[in-house]
């Protein structure tokens, strides 16, 4: 027998036939189909018991109640908490995307120390001892007032702890980032005296006169405002929106009144003049300066003059004034966009004066004058001589902007160390380059931050902070809400990284400093501190997760002092000589300050706002000849020039260019950064005398085909 070609053919055919009739083919087909439908490298969420934890969101001043769905102890979804007095089950897109912040690429995972241009990881013990060493040097140099601090808010125990730390250390230099709440407090202080804030009863008002407030674009407590706006039709309530562009709020309003940018205070005072002229005001609670004010507005804000300045017909202003004054429960609300940046005290006061004139203070559907922070009782501060001398000195500056200007002007460092808590002035202030330069003139900057953002990048030491899902914090309602609710944000997950609550970091730091500073922080943890300082409400707060301190109109009628406005403070003018005006636009889908927008929320932004990595500006087609819709253009202001895309929009007044706020981050986050332009890079600060606020509502600009 000879083994030939046929033998091998037989062998091959036999092998094939053997495999075909064996189970191999069937089984491998089945297995490969399962494999391809369940790629082993695709993560599969862990299965387990489903539970819900209630907490409070503090991503924005809205402080909504949230219910966090967890599987096997891991948070997987955030929903609005039904029955919560602020949002009653509602939630905004930033809140529901809040889980992304836990695993954000820019999260700071351990304490960091700057070494040259880079950060190196250190332990908490090293970070605390390093900072304590620097602070001890400052105290030993007998200049404790040279420690300054910037916090993001005015209300709650955390800002109070920073204040307590500074006082015990010996410094009066605590500064707060501008917010709707701080602007309202300043307004309340100007018109009604210190220690108050203002709430607007939007859900009951029958006529809301909004001076650019983005009621459905993130103003105030956003979800509460959405709900009040949604119920407007049922309640037969009217909304008149005064602003230069047809925003979502304006489109949703009963009437949109386009106004020249920056003339809102003129219009408010013009309406005051009409109300006074027609004797439609209630003078029962006027305290001082009213006569002078009445004469001033009649003279300076006569109808024709205001109409000319604002670009609104005199008849329309008069009609609006009469409607407002004759409404049963009218309320006027200040604060363009989110009411945070670029606001002036004159404008806030002028708008709130409308509420004062028509006598709707502390009445249903009107404006409520409410006390602040009255639920906290800290033990009296213990001060040594250095602290008493230092803390008793004058503050270095009236505001952060003023501090930045003074730092830039001084030859030697006027601040030796700076704490920054949860704030990003190196991004959110006008012309942030100057803030970064000023920070470089401070020898030691400590950042208390969850994210390595533009400001944290400027720090020498970073204390990594818990996010709102990992820590405990009392969060009082704020930002124009007409209810007083104290919420408790509680940990729904153990810290994902080596992070702490700001209160705990301060306690450790104070104890490392020793002496009287440590005596003021003799708590084992921030949770213990919170329990002690909220003593009266702690039981209810810890059991229920919130305490509704007051709802409905407060008792009594507050007095109104017209002195500030009666001097007719100057109206802010936009910087520059160009013909057009660039204004920032607050968009609900983006955030303004800290934290930066989440990857999820950024994906929801329209391509009329951001296309690819290019920012799109709104401009009326009649404004400039030669531009093309969707085309490229060069936008120039006295501060800078950028390439932009153009969106022709007939809903923006001719002569005005709108650019969204909240883009153009430059820190290390591949999902969010380097997309579009930071509008603040194009706007210079315009400081309002008296208030110290940066009241730059925009800037003069020109635009040409690129």
């Amino acid at each position, binding site marked *: 027998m000879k083994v030939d070609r*046929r033998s091998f053919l037989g062998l091959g055919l036999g092998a094939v036939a053997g*495999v075909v009739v*064996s189970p191999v083919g069937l*089984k491998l087909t089945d297995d490969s189909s399962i494999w391809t*439908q*369940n790629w082993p490298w695709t993560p599969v969420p862990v299965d387990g018991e489903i539970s819900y934890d209630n907490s409070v969101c503090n991503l924005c001043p809205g402080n909504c109640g949230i219910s966090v769905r967890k599987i096997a102890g891991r948070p997987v979804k955030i929903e609005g908490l039904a029955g919560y007095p602020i949002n009653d089950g509602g939630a905004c897109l930033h809140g529901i995307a809040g889980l992304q912040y836990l695993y954000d690429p820019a999260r700071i995972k351990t304490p960091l120390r700057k070494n040259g241009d880079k950060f190196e990881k250190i332990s908490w013990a090293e970070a605390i001892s390093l900072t304590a060493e620097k602070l001890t040097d400052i105290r030993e140099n007998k200049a404790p007032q040279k420690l300054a601090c910037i916090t993001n808010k005015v209300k709650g125990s955390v800002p109070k702890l920073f204040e307590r730390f500074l006082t015990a250390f010996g410094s009066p230099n605590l500064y707060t980032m501008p917010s709707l709440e701080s602007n309202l407090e300043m307004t309340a202080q100007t018109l009604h005296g210190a220690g108050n804030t203002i709430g607007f009863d939007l859900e009951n008002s029958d006529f809301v006169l909004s001076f650019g407030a983005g009621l459905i674009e993130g103003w105030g407590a956003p979800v509460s405002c959405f709900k009040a706006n949604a119920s407007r039709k049922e309640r037969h309530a009217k909304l008149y929106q005064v602003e230069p562009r047809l925003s979502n709020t304006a489109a949703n309003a009963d009437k949109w009144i386009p106004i020249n940018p920056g003339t809102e205070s003129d219009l408010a005072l013009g309406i005051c003049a009409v109300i006074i002229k027609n004797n439609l005001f209630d003078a029962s609670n006027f305290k001082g300066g009213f006569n002078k004010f009445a004469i001033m507005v009649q003279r300076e804000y006569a109808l024709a003059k205001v109409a000319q300045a604002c670009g609104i017909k005199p008849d329309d202003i008069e009609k609006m004034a009469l409607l407002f004054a004759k409404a049963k429960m009218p309320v006027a609300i200040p604060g363009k966009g989110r009411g945070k940046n670029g606001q002036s005290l004159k404008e806030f006061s002028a708008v709130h004066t409308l509420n004062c004139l028509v006598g709707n203070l502390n009445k249903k559907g009107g404006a409520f004058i409410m006390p602040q922070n009255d639920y906290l009782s800290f033990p009296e501060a213990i001060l040594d001589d250095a602290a008493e001398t230092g803390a008793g000195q004058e503050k270095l500056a009236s505001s952060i902007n003023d501090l930045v200007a003074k730092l830039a002007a001084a030859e030697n460092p006027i601040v030796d160390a700076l704490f920054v808590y949860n704030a990003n002035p190196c991004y959110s202030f006008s012309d942030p380059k100057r803030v970064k330069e000023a920070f470089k003139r401070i020898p030691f900057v400590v950042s208390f931050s969850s994210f390595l953002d533009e400001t944290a990048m400027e720090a020498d030491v970073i204390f990594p902070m818990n996010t709102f899902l990992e820590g405990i914090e009392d969060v009082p309602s704020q930002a124009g809400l007409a209810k007083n609710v104290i919420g408790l944000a509680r940990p729904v997950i153990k810290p994902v990284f080596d992070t702490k609550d700001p209160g705990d970091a301060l306690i450790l730091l104070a104890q490392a400093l020793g002496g009287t500073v440590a005596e003021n922080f003799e708590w084992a943890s921030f949770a213990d501190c919170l329990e002690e300082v909220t003593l009266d409400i702690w039981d209810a707060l810890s059991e229920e997760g919130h305490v509704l301190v007051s709802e409905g109109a407060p008792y009594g009628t507050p007095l109104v002092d017209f002195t500030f406005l009666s001097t007719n403070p100057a109206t802010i003018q936009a910087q520059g000589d160009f013909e057009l005006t660039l204004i920032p636009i607050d968009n609900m889908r983006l955030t303004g300050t800290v934290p930066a927008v989440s990857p999820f929320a950024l994906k929801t932004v329209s391509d009329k706002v951001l296309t690819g990595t290019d920012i799109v500006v709104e401009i009326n087609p009649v404004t400039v000849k030669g531009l093309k819709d969707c085309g490229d253009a060069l936008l120039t202001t006295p501060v800078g020039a950028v390439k932009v895309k153009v969106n022709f929009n007939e809903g923006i007044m001719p002569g005005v260019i709108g650019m969204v706020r909240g883009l153009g981050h430059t820190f290390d986050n591949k999902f969010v950064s380097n997309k579009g332009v930071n509008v603040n890079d194009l706007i210079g600060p315009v400081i309002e005398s008296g208030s110290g606020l940066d009241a730059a509502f925009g800037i003069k600009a020109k635009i040409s085909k690129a």
Partner: protein
Amino acid sequence: MSKIENKNENGSMDGAGEGTGGDPKDDKGLGLGVIFFMVAFLVCFLSGWLLFPKLLYSKREQPFNFDHVLHTEEVGDCETCHFLREDGTFSGMPSLESCMECHTDEPMGETEDEAIFAQEYVAKEKEVPWFVYSKQPDCVFFSHAAHITGDKPMDCKSCHGPIGESTTSKPYEENRITGYSRDIWGQNIWGIKKHSWDRMKMDDCAACHKEETGHQGYCLQCHK
């Protein structure tokens, strides 16, 4: 008939002559070819049947041995440890927390396995990384509640077999391609089953649904 057709016809005739007619030596070649065919067929067929499963599955031991009999004698039934939660979801493998309702880091009995459990898992508060014989791919939705409650509740045994009567944990045979247990396809590589619990493939679900409800079900009922 054209020249080309003639050529083709001749060509094929030639080929056929070589293959089938011709001299008797070629028959021997064919005979050897058949033998080779048979041998290769048998080797491959038997390998596919007997050797292939051994290569396809890797054997992995459970972290420690678990005695179902011992536990059911103590707690009475399956539902004590494998229960439906209040919201209708199924607890599946008991968590360490459930085990610790009875166990502590001091062993209750004298078995070596309990000692491992107490020392390695209870004392260190670590979940036991059990291999789950009945784990299905994530692309399948399955509700235990829909099957074991209601008018015609199914017995655990119908799908999981007499696992409650086991005193030892058998090795977990993991499919090297899919990562799932051999018990899903079934021990029989041909996919033949004697009992309802021998296989847990989609066709088995469909067959039972067809029998019980008159319809095998729609794709999106399970593949949501």
